[in-house]
């Protein structure tokens, strides 16, 4: 995994990049500001969600099930349509903030890098035929996770970056992006997850977003009762199973660090 740069924006890959206190991060969306991206740079969501390719939303709500059944659309990559680099050997984290990061934010990014490294090791250690069975009977295999993970990259955006039109929110999104998965997240979300002990929050976050990219999660029945909750719980279950397979920390099922929507079982699902 190598350090990469693109359009002047700092990108780093696991194991190499070390944030400096005085680093200032330029934004790829060069005309944007941290607080109010111009309309032309706003990530656009149009189209229809498909199963098995295209779009995966991690942010459906019960009130607006756009990410589950309705139109959700595609997210235009933030580098204005440039094709994403072939990156099976790299995990790229692009930081798109146009202000100086605080020391604690720099530590958060380092911790994100650590979480990605930990999840990377966990996934690499899974046998291709290892599988977990989810609450609805669907399965996720080691081979599927490896295939998705091998191309997944991360982008950290300013806090007021919005995702979606039917359900606009300022948190993040995970998309399949035609087989080159991209995870977008706003800085405050990472900072909040990083507050949990032993990097459990960021480990959870990385695995949760990967969970949304799996076929089982895409095929989830969005019309079922409690669909949104089950959909998110499933991603949580996948995240915890990945972490558990390698003995890395992850948010617990209950208590002050319990993740939103919780888990479907008392203890982690086991890859067998």
């Amino acid at each position, binding site marked *: 995994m190598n350090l990469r740069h693109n359009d002047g924006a700092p990108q780093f890959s696991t194991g190499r990049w070390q944030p400096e206190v005085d680093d200032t991060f330029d934004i790829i969306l060069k005309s944007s500001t*941290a*607080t109010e991206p111009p309309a032309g740079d706003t990530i656009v969501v149009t189209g229809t969600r498909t199963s098995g390719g295209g779009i995966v939303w*991690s*942010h*459906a*709500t*019960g*009130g607006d099930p756009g990410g589950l059944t309705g139109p959700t659309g595609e997210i235009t990559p933030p580098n204005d349509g440039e094709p994403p680099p072939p990156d099976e050997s790299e995990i790229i984290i692009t930081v798109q903030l146009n*202000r100086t*990061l*605080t020391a*604690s*934010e720099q530590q958060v990014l380092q911790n994100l890098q650590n979480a990605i490294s930990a999840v990377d090791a966990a996934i690499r250690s899974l046998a291709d035929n290892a599988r977990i069975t989810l609450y609805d009977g669907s399965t996720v295999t080691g081979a599927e996770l490896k295939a998705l993970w091998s191309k997944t990259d991360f982008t950290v955006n*300013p*806090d*007021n970056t919005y995702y979606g039109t039917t359900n606009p*929110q300022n*948190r*993040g999104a995970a998309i399949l992006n035609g087989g080159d998965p991209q995870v977008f997240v706003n*800085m*405050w*979300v990472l*900072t*909040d*997850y990083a*507050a*949990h*002990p032993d990097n459990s*929050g960021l480990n959870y976050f990385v695995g949760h977003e990967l969970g949304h990219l799996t076929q089982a999660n895409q095929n989830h029945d969005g019309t079922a009762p*409690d669909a*949104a*909750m089950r959909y*998110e*719980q499933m991603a949580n279950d996948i995240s915890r199973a990945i972490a558990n397979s390698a003995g890395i920390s992850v*948010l*617990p*099922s*209950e*208590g*002050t*660090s*319990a*993740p*939103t*929507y*919780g*888990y479907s079982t*008392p203890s982690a699902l086991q890859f067998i």
Partner: protein
Amino acid sequence: MLKLIALLVISVISVSASPGVQRSESKLRSDCAKFVKSLDQPMHATARQLSGDELGGKPDGANFEGRPTYQIGQLRYFGAGVEATSTDRRFSKVRVFADQGAMHDCGYRVNFWPGPWNMLLGDVSSAAFRFERGRVTKPRTGTPGKAPASGPSPVITNFVSGARWPLSKSDGTIDFVQLMHPKNGSSETLIVRLDNSRSTVRTSILGKLPVRFQAIGLVPNLHSSGRMMNLVGKDPNGPYRSIVLQMPDGV
């Protein structure tokens, strides 16, 4: 000279460990030795969903995941809350600490199932407390959730500060949310926010709960507005409670 030193040492020992304290510590060690043998046995429990009324909430006509929500100050409760009790004798030795969450007095963390989110699905089966293996020998340091010994602290008449959790802001600075408890020991919890961005720290009360919660944590709400606030508490000889409140954007 050596005799004098020996006398001093004996004197110090007799002051620091009176016979009563020694008996108490000895009994605790004995009790904990027995307890450790039962670590793998869960404490079976009965659990139920906490209602918005019980938490002092008022119906606000809105909903979350199709469930009616209750306004508690500036926070919202939507039914993700559980109250649990157990007749297992070990349950009386479980307490909730600001920095460690639920722990048995012998130093082992306690996990409960089902969690508050599972209450939304009506899942109260297999309710039990389980102990983590691996004794916690010393408190964590630098871990959110523990009221810091230094730094700004809210001052509210007749209340004392409790657990605290950081709250990140878009400019990279950090505020805090904090629990406060009545000085008279009554079961009540104030949730306050410390606005740390001004030269004078401002405190605002976000909500007031009629029951005791000793631990707090925030997780991002990836799915709708704001954050989710996890609260855990247990009265002495009382039930264990774990709830989730929605903390809307802008609060």
